[in-house]
């Protein structure tokens, strides 16, 4: 297991000085991700907050090669980079071992980029795709995505008199990725930073595509205190809002099974996006029911797949 001091001192490929908001989960994810991957890594990032805050010309936060193409195609672009890498290696023009990592927000991953991601995963390119999942299109001003949780208020699913925020549950992209039968799929949370770092290393070591979905607190979009991002990353797990698990060659493992489960409200009501639910307890119940069912299913999958 990595030591946080070691990680902080040598793995600084995503430098400070970027323009992200205070308390941004996405930049913590990139910092850990680039540290875990090391210097021989090429990143491809989708349009979205992380690309915007890190590459304002003529500056860049990236000390490793970074490429941005468009919003919905970071997986396809990375599949091209990976193909070039293999082709040039075959021709003896490259001899280094290079990691290829694509990333995008949940909008660029669950919605507009889903086809491109699915295609790249199905084709079996050796690349890691990381989704920083803040549960909305934050860059354009907090619009709903298919990763926005049930009940959350966003600018295109605003909590109003009639409709109380987003009325659909989250798309389960991680399961969709597992259904691609790729060698490694995981969910992570920055509170469990060492788990995330280990997952990145594992993912980069498999011979084929891998996918990690990381919960990414967003103070602006969630209406939370900037100082609460890491705490929320813990609460999300101990309330089963977000499960930290992996699926390696079809075998599930829940990496964090909260010893003391906390009431969902503790996670929800630290965020303005859920505040209207205080007056709508039946909606909190519906969310709780859904999340519990997800967790129970996950426990069953873990049991069945390891039999």
């Amino acid at each position, binding site marked *: 297991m990595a030591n946080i001091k070691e990680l902080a001192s040598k793995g600084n490929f995503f430098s400070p000085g970027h323009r992200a908001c205070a308390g941004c989960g996405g930049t913590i994810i990139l910092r850990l991700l680039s540290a875990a991957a090391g210097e021989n890594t*090429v990143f491809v990032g989708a349009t979205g907050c992380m690309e915007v805050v890190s590459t304002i010309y003529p500056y860049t936060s990236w000390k490793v090669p970074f490429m941005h193409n468009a919003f919905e195609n970071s997986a396809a672009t990375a599949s091209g980079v990976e*193909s070039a890498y293999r082709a040039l290696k075959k021709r003896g023009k490259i001899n280094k071992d290079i990691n290829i990592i694509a990333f995008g927000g949940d909008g660029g991953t669950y919605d507009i980029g889903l086809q491109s991601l699915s295609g790249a995963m199905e084709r079996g390119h050796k690349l890691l795709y990381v989704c920083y999942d803040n549960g909305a299109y934050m860059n354009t001003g907090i619009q709903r995505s298919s990763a926005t949780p049930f009940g959350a208020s966003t600018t295109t699913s605003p909590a109003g008199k009639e409709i109380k925020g987003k009325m659909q549950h989250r798309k389960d992209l991680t399961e969709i990725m597992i259904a691609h039968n790729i060698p490694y799929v995981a969910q992570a949370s920055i509170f469990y930073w060492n788990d995330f770092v280990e997952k990145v290393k594992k993912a980069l070591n498999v011979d084929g595509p891998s996918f990690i979905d990381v919960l990414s607190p967003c103070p602006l979009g969630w209406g939370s205190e900037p100082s609460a991002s890491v705490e929320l990353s813990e609460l999300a797990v101990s309330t089963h809002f977000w499960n930290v698990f992996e699926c390696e060659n079809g075998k599930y493992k829940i990496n964090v099974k909260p010893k003391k489960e906390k009431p969902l409200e503790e996670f929800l009501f630290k965020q303005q996006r859920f505040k209207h639910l205080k007056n709508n307890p039946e909606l909190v119940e519906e969310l709780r029911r859904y999340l519990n069912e997800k967790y129970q299913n996950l426990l069953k999958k873990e049991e069945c797949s390891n039999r």
Partner: protein
Amino acid sequence: MTKIVAKTGNEAMAEAMRQINPDVVAAYPITPATEIVQIFSSFVSNGEVDTLFVPTESEHSAISACVGAAAAGARVMTGTSSQGLALMHEVLFIAGGLRLPIVICEVNRALSSPINIHCDHSDTMASRDAGWIQIFSEDPQEAYDQTILAMKLSEQLFVPSMVTTDGFIISHAMQRVEIFDDNEVQEYLGEPKRPYNLLDVDNPITVGPLALQDYFMEIKVQQANFIKESRSKIKEILNDFNKKMKRDYSVVEKYMMDDAEFCFVALGSTAGTLRYTVDRLRKEGEKVGLLKVRFYRPFFEEDIVESLKNIKGCAIFDRSDMFAGTGGHLFNDVKSALYNSSSRPFLKDYVYGLGGRDIDVEDIESVYRDIKEFTENNGKGETVKYITVRE
């Protein structure tokens, strides 16, 4: 040593691709371009090329993968048509802006709706502002030669290129094609040249950043200036191609223009029918010529103005419409090129061949009569005419 074979436009382009032997080809099928990548994938399967073939799930991903691969230092090609090129649209501009040497074998086909699989130029025209070189081919020979030339141009200029053929008319029509030796093509192209290399982890760079009000304009003006200046470089590269590969191409091709009073201007396969019609009309003593525009982007304004300087009446053949109430693309470009010229011919647009509608010698002869009359009337009346349309 050249070899003479019979090939369709698609086969000729696939053959050029085989000889170019790119590092990466990423593509998605669409009629009438499907065959190009189909033939090419058999080259891959049989080990006749070293290329890594990426069969993407869409054209958007195909061109995205091409952009990624080209930025990573690979020699990259793809092929598409119509809806496929339209789906690539967003990324075409990115490839242009990132100055990536990518070559698309593009088979011209009408854009929907109505859906139609046959030739017109609406697809290629819709992407004319993307910062790509656009080369039209009259026949399989040109399609073959120009595919090889395009790779050279793109790698010399760091501007992506699309070489087009006319769907079915050229893509599926078999003609005599002179093929170079494999090593001649390799020698001509040399090692791939790249503007930068994303995979150089020892010299990390950031590609495709966000540039705002303070830098965006300078970056785009650089691109615009480069494209402007690239015209003389394209001529040099074309001359060099002619010398090394024993061809005789020019950016715009003049036929019987020296003493012509009237002329036709066209792109692509129709130039063949026009040339034939010019010969027929010449036999009847008519002073008519043909100007074939080989390079549509960049637009060789000066060469076109110069070619038309002694012309009285000029019939532009457009296989596309701008839906602006002002006719087709070529007409509008030629018209604006002539604006500052002291000797302007009367100009009339003949929109033809949409969705593969055939055009024959009689149709062209009636255009000739019409442009003569239009000229005699000092350009009075409609300046855009849709021809071969059922009443």
